[in-house]
């Protein structure tokens, strides 16, 4: 029963999103709004700005270095949260929690 409700819901969502997909700019065409001066700037300026051939590495480590710095903090937070949930420690009096 719940399967049928889920499928009906998904068909409704799917029809709406398919209509939206038909209105999107054509896949792979060079004049989509995504291919604007930003892409041009990265592709032409990456080598002279950073000296790296890999533009993705240039963006991740140089242009958006703050993003990656905080991203390492995300990994750190994930480890702290997993340890908080799973590890059993002792408090200051030596009692197990």
């Amino acid at each position, binding site marked *: 029963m719940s399967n049928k409700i889920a499928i009906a819901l998904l068909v409704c969502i799917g029809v709406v999103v398919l209509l939206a997909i038909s209105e999107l700019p054509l896949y792979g065409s060079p004049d989509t709004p995504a291919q604007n001066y930003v892409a041009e700037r990265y592709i032409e300026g990456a080598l002279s700005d950073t*000296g790296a*051939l890999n533009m993705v590495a*240039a963006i*991740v480590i140089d242009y958006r*270095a703050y993003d990656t710095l905080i991203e*390492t903090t995300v990994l750190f937070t994930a480890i702290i949260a*997993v*340890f908080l949930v799973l*590890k059993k420690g002792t408090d200051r009096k030596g009692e197990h929690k």
Partner: protein
Amino acid sequence: MTDFVLKRMVALVLPFVQMLGFYVIFHGHLSPGGSFSGGIITGLSLIAFSLVFGLERGQEKVSERMMSLVESFGALWYGAMGLVGVLRGTTFLMNKGAGVPLGEPGKLYSGGLILLITLGVGLKVASTVVTLFVALMEEEE
């Protein structure tokens, strides 16, 4: 697991997997890949060792304390590389503007601080993957 074939095959393959991981980390600015993919390959080689030879022997090779040290080193190394820009009189995490020599494009040393930062982040990602695996695998006391 006590399968002889599995153990010998893993012992044969793992050094090359680790070398591939460090290759991907060191050539992150020249070829596809980078700190995250290379770090995950290196971490997965350690995870495969723990899976085949048992968690205790894996812990002997890379102890939890060492993993936490490597992890803190990765994060602090990133901050230290950012301070290079501050010491040269520009803003935090500045690369070319801080006067770091960019090197010749296409060579291993190129891109200024990118290579060094990638090394730190790659080590951090490897230790993160291993630490998460060990935390999820450990038996309840």
